[in-house]
């Protein structure tokens, strides 16, 4: 790792990789930082190098992403800084950025003239009675265990929510040899079909994106996995760990649950940097606002991929390419015309993917399907703040004021999990949510202290 870079890319997923590849050959000193050890992002969370996995992520859908990943890993002259979390970024006196990184061996800082935030998204955390029982996971978390660590965190798993991705996850679990007790969609099948029918063109053009879900569903059906619609979660039951779920259709025994109500952008870093944000989508959260070259409102700071709104890996790739060209343009490495020519096709593809993402957003929309919380339901897991503890604070106060009064959002996750729920409860569309504060991830005091 050098001390200074022309560009630091935070996130080695589809967006970050695409940007790095787009800037290849310009002679820039580029670092790509990711808290995962290997590039890939959430969609291609790689197995450890020590494993040999045959046919990993072999499906056709992943082919383009795998190809890009291969190209990225073959890039020379780029510093891959895996296993390091970016805790924060600030401006130094010479107008470059200072990034604080923490890893297994402590804290490091690096300077970069430009920074691209490609930090992706995270599963929306959805509180419901019993959701803090051990064995309840974010659906994406289960999937990461399966595709990367090659374990299944349960023997009989229930997936529940509104997002079609749960079909793919269930399919992957079954393919791994574990059993899925049920996949429950809170919305009705008709409602989903109606939305598809309302946008036949988008749906038809993006058939390839819809096919995997359809194929997964067919395979699940063949294996006798119940996929049910219009079934809402009422609660998760168990003593010290998950033993089953209660839904509108009755009880289903299981030893693990994956909640799949959608995704929200990882917004800690752009918010900390003071970048303009917008409400992200029906699942909640905040997305970094960008111009046509993926510039945020903070000079020198760019964002691409799901940090700017959850729109899928293909859109993330496109945005990464556009960001790469935009950075080259701003650094004077490409003339405006050349930059524009370079991304003309990408912009068209990007627009198409965004249209599909908007359709998927509507299909997967969790609003109206959130499970009903009980007064004792924990909203903020870090601080064990219950809905009942919040009710008295919901009197028009800001999210920050509720946090101060109730401790909701005051724990180690900095409110990443409870903020969407709290903002839903507040119902105040103008509330910007919790102030984003350093550090974006917990970090040992001793690592931060000035030398003795």
């Amino acid at each position, binding site marked *: 790792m050098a001390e200074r870079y022309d560009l630091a890319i935070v996130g080695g997923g589809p967006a970050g990789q695409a940007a790095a590849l787009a800037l290849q050959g310009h002679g820039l000193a580029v670092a790509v930082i990711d808290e995962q050890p290997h590039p890939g992002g959430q969609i291609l969370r790689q197995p450890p190098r020590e494993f040999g996995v045959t046919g990993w992520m072999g499906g056709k859908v992943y082919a383009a992403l795998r190809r890009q990943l291969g190209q990225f890993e073959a890039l020379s002259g780029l510093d891959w800084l895996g296993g390091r979390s970016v805790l924060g970024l600030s*401006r130094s006196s010479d107008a470059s950025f200072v990034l604080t990184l923490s890893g297994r061996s402590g804290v490091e800082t690096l300077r970069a003239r430009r920074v691209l935030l490609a930090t992706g998204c995270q599963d929306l955390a959805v509180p419901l009675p019993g959701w803090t029982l051990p064995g309840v996971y974010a659906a994406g978390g289960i999937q990461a265990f399966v595709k990367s660590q090659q374990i299944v965190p349960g023997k009989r798993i229930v997936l529940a929510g509104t997002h079609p991705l749960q079909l793919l996850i269930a399919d992957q679990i079954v393919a791994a040899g574990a059993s899925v007790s049920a996949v429950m969609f809170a919305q009705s099948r008709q409602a989903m079909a109606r939305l598809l029918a309302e946008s036949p063109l988008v749906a038809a053009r993006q058939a390839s994106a819809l096919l995997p879900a359809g194929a997964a569903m067919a395979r699940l059906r063949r294996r006798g996995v119940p996929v049910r619609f219009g079934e809402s979660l009422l609660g998760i039951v168990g003593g010290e760990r998950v033993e089953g779920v209660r839904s509108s259709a009755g009880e289903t025994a299981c030893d693990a649950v994956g909640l799949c109500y959608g995704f929200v952008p990882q917004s800690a870093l752009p918010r900390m940097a003071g970048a303009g944000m917008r409400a992200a989508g029906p699942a909640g959260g905040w997305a970094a606002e960008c111009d046509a070259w993926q510039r945020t409102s903070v000079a020198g700071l760019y964002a691409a991929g799901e940090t700017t709104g959850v729109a899928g890996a293909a859109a993330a790739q496109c945005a990464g390419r556009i960001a790469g060209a935009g950075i080259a343009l701003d650094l004077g490495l490409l003339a405006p015309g050349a930059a524009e020519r370079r991304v003309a096709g990408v912009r068209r593809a990007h627009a198409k993917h965004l249209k599909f993402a908007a359709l998927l957003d509507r299909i997967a929309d969790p609003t109206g399907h959130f499970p009903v919380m009980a007064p004792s339901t924990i909203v903020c897991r870090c601080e064990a703040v219950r809905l009942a503890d919040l009710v008295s604070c919901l009197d028009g106060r800001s999210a920050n004021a509720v946090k101060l009064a109730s401790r909701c959002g005051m724990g180690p996750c900095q409110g990443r999990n409870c903020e969407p729920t709290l903002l839903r409860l507040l119902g105040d569309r103008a509330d910007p949510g919790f102030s984003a504060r350093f550090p974006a991830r917990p970090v040992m005091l001793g690592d931060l202290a000035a030398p003795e």
Partner: protein
Amino acid sequence: MRKADVLIVGGGLVGCATAWHLARGGAQVTLLEAGDIGMGASGQNAGSLHFQLERRFLENGEALAEQAARTAALSRLAIDDWRGLEAELGADLHVVMDGGLMVAETAEQVGVLERKIARENAEGLATRLLDGDEARAIAPYLSAGILAAGFSGDEGHADARAVTRAFAEAAAHAGAILRMRSPVTSARRLDRGFEIACADETLQGDRLVIACGAWTAQICARLNLHMPLFPVALLMNATERTAKGLRHLVQHVGRRLSMKQTHAGNILIGGGWPARLAQAPDGTFDPRRRPEMIAASLAGNMRAAIDTAPFVAKLNLIRSWTGVTAISADQLPIVGEVPSMPGCWVAGGGSAFTLGPTFARLMAQAMGGRAAPELDIVSPARFEHLNSFMG
């Protein structure tokens, strides 16, 4: 137009506590707060109840130390106020007054401590000097490098998240009107009394209390008054929860440090490390916007904490934040009636978490007609020369 006996600008600890005391005494009080209650310095501070002379008063010459020592009378009152506060407000404020240690690591610092304690004792504050081993006997978490500590049995901490709100609730209960999200945009003196306005209302009152922290000078300017209070931005840090380990308030006589453990188990670390105030486009400071963290402050603060209580080195920092408070031209608080503008009261500056409840009580007492000579030393009268040309 609504009229009140007393109008209060600012819903921080000082404003809310003043509203409570006045309303309890039967006055009609209306308080206007620009945002939510207690979200200024009162909600951002460290929650230290410190009664030993602060380090900042000890490193700027004898004259200041001497002057600051004379505020000890206020500290003595504050000790009693804090001891009774939870019962009086009927609220759990997590007040812990198990003692505070101000540590020294060098012989020179021990000397400062000795002189400080002599001063405090002369002013009637019961602080005493412990040697390193005595300090470690009551505070085993202290580093072997600690040579001595000033000990005050009354020091401690309280939950800054709860205190201001408890005052606000008590004030409302006593009949005060508290308006949130109502920034005061104008203020003027009438022939009798004052008039202030926010977006949707104009109010008149016989008296006006300006308790808006870092914004105090701005509101005073509306009244054509100079008030030498300046915004400063400070850094605070919180660790993850840890099993109870740190019972006392811990401060350092030679380095910027304050440390305590909250009832939830987090250790709060601060001590006056600077952050950078945001600037408005016109170049003035903008206390409303989030100040920027300074990396060297963070590193220095962590180092001071670790050198003092080494066990914290292994804890995770979960949040650093910056808060804005007011400092006066001579560092002492400015509290009292403005001599050139009878009826206009100001309260700003100083460590007004510790002293705020006392400032509020004494101001209310004085407004009620009972003199509060303890406030003389902090009266705005000492800055009247600044207003002698303000007409």
